[in-house]
């Protein structure tokens, strides 16, 4: 494996660790009464308000529709995800040390699988909060209405416009994945990718 590939993989490992300190996803709620918006940030290890009081206020508003209280302590995945990301970071270091292409492939495969499972899990929690409503104590009951925010994009939920977008942490994770792919491409060294050099090599062969 070329040195440049190893460097990229080491960088990917660092990006994954950095992502632990940043929000992965951000849900923004805007309503006529909340022009400044209420924000919720999903981190690998917790869910918190964009401003200190935002999560409390989102929960306070959610009691009207019978939604469960969003409590980070009640979401077991938040205790696992940081370890999974740290594990991926360590895994890429294994690839750096061994320099084996197969390890990079295995790393990327597990990376992709965990990414997909993570997205499904997030969607599932959104589904659960949006659909599993306490209709006995809900104050606002609209038949057929559910309050699942979108995974990615914008959706109108009563007076709130809910927007959900990946945040800086996810950008770093995505970048780490891309670095892994690039490191594979560069694995065989620069000659394969350099048409001029390839031409020169062909000419040398022809002369010989």
């Amino acid at each position: 494996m070329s040195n440049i590939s190893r460097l990229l993989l080491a960088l990917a490992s660092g990006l994954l660790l950095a992502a632990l300190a940043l929000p992965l996803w951000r849900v923004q709620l805007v309503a006529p009464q909340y022009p400044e918006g209420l924000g919720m940030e999903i981190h690998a290890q917790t869910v918190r308000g964009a401003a200190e009081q935002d999560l409390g206020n989102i929960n306070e508003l959610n009691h009207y529709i019978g939604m469960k209280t969003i409590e980070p302590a009640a979401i077991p995945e938040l205790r696992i995800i940081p370890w999974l990301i740290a594990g991926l970071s360590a895994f890429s270091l294994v690839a750096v040390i061994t320099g084996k292409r197969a390890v990079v492939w295995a790393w990327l495969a597990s990376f992709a699988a965990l990414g997909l499972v993570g997205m499904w899990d997030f969607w599932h929690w959104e589904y659960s909060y949006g659909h599993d409503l306490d209709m006995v104590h809900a104050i606002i009951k609209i038949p057929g209405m559910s309050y699942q925010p979108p995974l990615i994009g914008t959706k109108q939920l009563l007076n709130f416009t809910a927007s959900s977008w990946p945040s800086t942490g996810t950008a770093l994770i995505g970048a780490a994945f891309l670095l892994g792919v690039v490191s594979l491409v560069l694995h065989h060294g620069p000659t394969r990718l350099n048409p001029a050099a390839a031409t020169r090599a062909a000419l040398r062969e022809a002369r010989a």
Partner: protein
Amino acid sequence: MRLSTQRSLLLAAVAVAGVIYACTPRAKTASLAASDAASKVYVPPGSYDEFYAFLSGGYSGQVSVYGLPSGRLLKLIPVFSQFPEDGYGYNEETKPLLQTTYGFVPWDDSHHPELSQTNGVPDGRWLFINANNTPRVARIDLTRFETDEILQIPNSAGGHASPFTTPNSKYVVSATRFSVPIPNTDVAIDTYKQNFKGTITFMTADQPGKMDIAFQILMPGYNYDLGHAGKGPSDGWFFFTSYNTEQASTKLEENASQNDKDYVAAINYKRAEECVAQNKFTTQTTEYVHNWVDQASRAAKSEKKTSVKLINPSQCPGIAYYLPTPKSPHGVDIDPTGEYIVAGGKLATVIPVHSFTKLQKAIADKAFDKEVDGIPVLKYDAVIAGEVQKPGLGPLHTEFDGKGYAYTSMFISSEVVKWKLGTWEVVDRIPTYYSIGHLSIPGGDSKQPWGKYVLALNKITKDRYLPTGPEMAQSAQLIDISGDKMKLLLDFPTIGEPHYAQALPASLIKDKQIKFFKLAENAHPFATKAESEGGITRTGKRVDIKMIAIRSHFAPDNLEGVQVGDTVYFHVTNIEQDWDIEHGFAVLGQNNSELILNPGETRTLQWIPKTPGVYPFYCTDFCSALHQEMQGYVRVSPAGSPVKLMANVSKKTQAQLVEAQKH
């Protein structure tokens, strides 16, 4: 026949007049000017004004806050008067702010708002304001727009020349409008000349919660009217106008208008500090009250103080001088450079301007006419810098634009007069509607005026608005002073009687506003921070109810065990942590006002039920979609009833408990 001809002629005349009126170019010009003015004061919906203006409430005792240039009312800040709208002075937390040595005083007359300064420029930390009737000074915090502190002034009657600030707000001052015996004793009123004195008080003001009387200066028994601190070269001096140098105690209208000149008192307060340091003062036993809000609990406290340092000018030479000034002067205003001392002689035919440089020289040269109670009276010619000739009638107050011009309000001729410092020539004048008192330029009494507008504060309104019976709101008028000619832009009604106003750029305070109080930091002894923590307790005849308010319920909301003869305290905590989510609280038959609860704060309502029954309480501030459901009941039983004390938790919490028990 003759009659009908007359009528036709009359009709024709009216028609002609109508045509002339319709064709007159003045009408067209006026409407163009109106649209021009409108565009200058138009602040589109959702946009902000450029300036905050703080107007005193006069006999309302409060402060009103307007945006300029729109003239939109932003807030009323209760200061010296009870305010049932938010429970100020009615709830247990704010009652101590209105304590005095005369007991609880529910009203006063607030005259002069004064912004705190740093290096002679308004800094947006605090606003001070005086109470004239029962002399006090209040400090309003400008991150919350709330009264935080009130200091009573002993040895004072009529705290009018107040609360003007020194350039770093180390001190604010108060001088007595009414001279009285000091200490106040039972003497014959006609012994005024022997027994009546004035005082000038310096209060330390730059430590929130710790305002105190630094020292008082005993002055001859005149009426002290207004004041202003020196700045730049005159830093360390303070200037006060006085009238009634005739020392009349009756029919002052006539008897206090005899002398051609009264005095501006020049006080060297650095010299006063020296005298205090050298023990050249008398410690006088007296009583006054200091009230302040404890920020952790947001509950006010009250303490009694028992002595002041009283300086007699004869003990401390060099502390005070009198500058003869025509005639019955009202305002005394110092230009931004600190050189000129402008006095508004109510009955003078000129505006006299003293020079600080000449004042110093006159003192050095001992250019004295005479001495009054140890205070040298300087020669008029030795201190006068110039006189503005024929300025109009009844000059009262002067503010400055920072571009070399002064603007003086003329009460009798009802106008603002613009004149040039140094040449003393009048360059422009504009009528006011009607009888202007104070006027205000943002930062217009400071080292750095933002000289874009002058706000005229008028005493008489008459026909300016739709009539509202015999009493009309007072009127403020916004005048553009950005060009050579003053232009009237807007007039708007005001709250109470705004004597003075001060304004500053909104950018100095708007981003420092507190949006809610952090519940975790609420140290009120009866704070309830979670629904489960509410309850009811009895201590003899006192019943304390701890309760939370959150959209859209109180918890607990059913209470029993209260008896006739009890004094009940509802301690309600708004546990919201969101901007502008207020709740209110009121209970049937209460003898005081509602509570208004800011997010995160606890307020206490005292209630003495008189007859058995069930009393509803409810949220008075429309808080949410289910506001109308935000209510509860308290049961009152006869004295000695066996009904036990009971406080439920809210229906929501009860239901949650039932659910929890099921699982």
